């Protein structure tokens, strides 16, 4: 963590004095498993999100994206726990917030939507009740005003006949409508950051594009930053300004979307792009999945977690891969990778790579 900051700071593209909206440093989230073993689902993650920015977070299923997203809002429940790291939101430390402050912060400054919109709505409460809740509890609006607000919010996210839909129950909505409702709730108080954890994965393909468009437009209008978690690189290519790739709990590569997709430095990112239908074909790469699967996060060795599946390591026979954790390498401004084999592009002088 310290090493990364020393290497990173002089080379990031953004000016040093501008504080990002969200700065995460050294975040580590651990689950205590039965039998006393520990599983670190998020390991020593550093990440910034700028104001108004769309950051895509990609990685295979099981790589720790959801746990990371929930860790940011301190939503991880026992047996899970954030065991290390700092989260600064506009300079305020989220880790030091009291339960009360945390409630206020979650309602007003950040919002979150999830993968299964229908199971995220309370089955016995009317849609209007759920949409009006932030207005009622956080804004202290009157019941009548909150209810009217709910109708307006539903209209804004494109729900037809919102005056009727406020009276509906969740099981009467389609998946796409439920996700629109979730977006309406999350954006009710115009938060500065929205975290969307695979918001379209569970939806019909025909609906996915509409929901993504709605997310992008709503965030643009409100000036809200978006952390978009997905395992679909096509979604990232269309929406994101910046991309972070997660593997086995770590951010293994991070950079602006153009350079990440055209010149990925980490063998895992290269593999992901090779496996993505539209992207792979566009680059003339033959479609192929990365062989092997994500390792058991509770039984990780000392070296790079990707080493057993890594083409680059096999080709160059790098000893260090299995012995120690790679330190971040700056590939070019604002683009870094966590790999012994990654090389800095010629434009920038290479950083030291510790053996």
């Amino acid at each position, binding site marked *: 963590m310290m090493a990364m900051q020393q290497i990173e700071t002089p080379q990031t593209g953004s000016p040093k004095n501008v504080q990002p909206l969200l700065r995460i440093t050294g975040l580590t989230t651990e689950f205590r498993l039965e039998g006393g073993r520990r599983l670190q689902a998020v390991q020593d993650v550093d990440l910034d999100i700028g104001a108004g920015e769309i950051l895509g977070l990609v990685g295979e299923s099981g790589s720790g994206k959801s746990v990371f997203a*929930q860790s940011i*809002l301190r*939503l991880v*429940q026992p047996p899970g726990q954030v065991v290390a790291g700092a989260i600064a939101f506009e300079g305020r430390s989220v880790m030091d917030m009291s*339960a*009360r402050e945390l*409630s*206020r*912060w*979650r*309602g*007003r400054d950040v*919002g*979150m939507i*999830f993968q*299964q919109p229908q*199971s*995220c*709505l*309370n*089955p*016995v*409460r009317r849609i209007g009740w759920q949409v009006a*809740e*932030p207005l009622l*509890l*956080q804004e202290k609006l009157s019941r009548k005003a909150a209810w009217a607000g709910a109708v307006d919010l539903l209209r804004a996210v494109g729900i037809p006949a919102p005056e009727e839909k406020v009276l509906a*129950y969740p*099981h009467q909505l389609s998946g796409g409508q439920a996700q629109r409702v*979730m977006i309406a*709730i*999350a954006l009710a108080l115009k938060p500065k950051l929205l975290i969307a954890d695979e918001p379209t994965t569970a939806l019909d393909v025909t609906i996915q594009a509409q929901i993504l468009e709605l997310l992008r437009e709503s965030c643009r209008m409100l000036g809200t930053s978006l952390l978009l978690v997905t395992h679909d690189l096509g979604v990232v290519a269309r929406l994101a300004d910046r991309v972070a790739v997660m593997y086995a709990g770590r951010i293994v590569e991070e950079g602006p979307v153009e350079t990440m997709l055209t010149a990925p430095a980490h063998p895992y990112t290269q593999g992901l792009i090779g496996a993505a239908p539209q992207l792979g074909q566009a680059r003339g790469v033959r479609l192929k999945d990365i062989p092997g699967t994500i390792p058991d996060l509770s039984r990780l060795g000392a070296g790079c977690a990707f080493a057993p599946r890594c083409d680059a390591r096999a080709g160059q026979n790098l000893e260090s891969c299995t012995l120690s954790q790679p330190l971040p390498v700056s590939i070019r401004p604002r683009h870094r990778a966590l790999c012994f084999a990654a090389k800095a592009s010629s434009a920038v002088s290479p950083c030291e790579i510790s053996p």
Partner: protein
Amino acid sequence: MLQYVARRLLLLIPVVIGILLVTFLMKALIPTDAVTAIYSGTLSEKDAAEAIATLRAKYHLDLPWYQQFYIYVRDLMSGDFGESIRLRKPVMDELGYRYVNTIILTLAALAIALVVGLTTGILAAVKRNSWLDVTATTIGLFGISMPAFFFGLLLILVFAVWLRWLPVVPRGTMALLLPAVALGLIEAAPISQVARTSMIDVLGRDYIQAARARGASEFALVVRHALPNALIVVLTLVGLQIGNLLGGAFIIEAIFGWHGIGELAVNAIEWRDFTLTQAIILISAATYLVVNLVADILYAWLDPRVELNS
């Protein structure tokens, strides 16, 4: 909703006919008929035969069964539950106030069971694995395995005999206290268990996490979001439990000398008073039906997922 209630009522018709048939046929299954039982040994043979014939005619025992059934139902319809053979007065005169007493006892017990059961169950779920949870669960296990009459006797022993806080045979509202507590606490145990389990289940659902993510406090999560869902499960149990509660009331009444229909039922059977027994069974069955109907309607009203039109 009205449609749903109407449909449920229609479905009850065959059940009601069934109950009427069973209570009517009961007396055919009793080995000695009641009239014979009353006079056997008390009168000379000739007088007895005469008296029996008169009474048989009075109770229509000389008619074919289907005519008897018709008369039985017709009389019930006009609110005539017959005359008690032993007490020599209309059954309803005795049954009426005793029925009210039993309902009072059952409702008081239900209120105690709900308050105690829900509070401990919900607290145990929210403070899972705390000393409170462990204590509540342990006591609950005792409650579930203890018969109501034993617990009742235990209460009398402790509060009336040892501590002398209450007379052994109290009067007025005090008379209600011990039997209601005995019955209520016994029934609180399963309510507490189900409330705890369903609350733990609900608190782990996605919609609770989503509500937490939008800034709901832990208190709001429990009360506004989780409780309505958990209550639906508890309600189903309570609907089934009312039967237990009524059955328990019969025994508890006999122990505490509470003048309800339970106490009366014990007497009626001893007296071989079939009109009285019939009426008691009928009224208990009817109560059970109504309670279940109310539980079903409440359930449909609380859970929007119950399809009201199918």
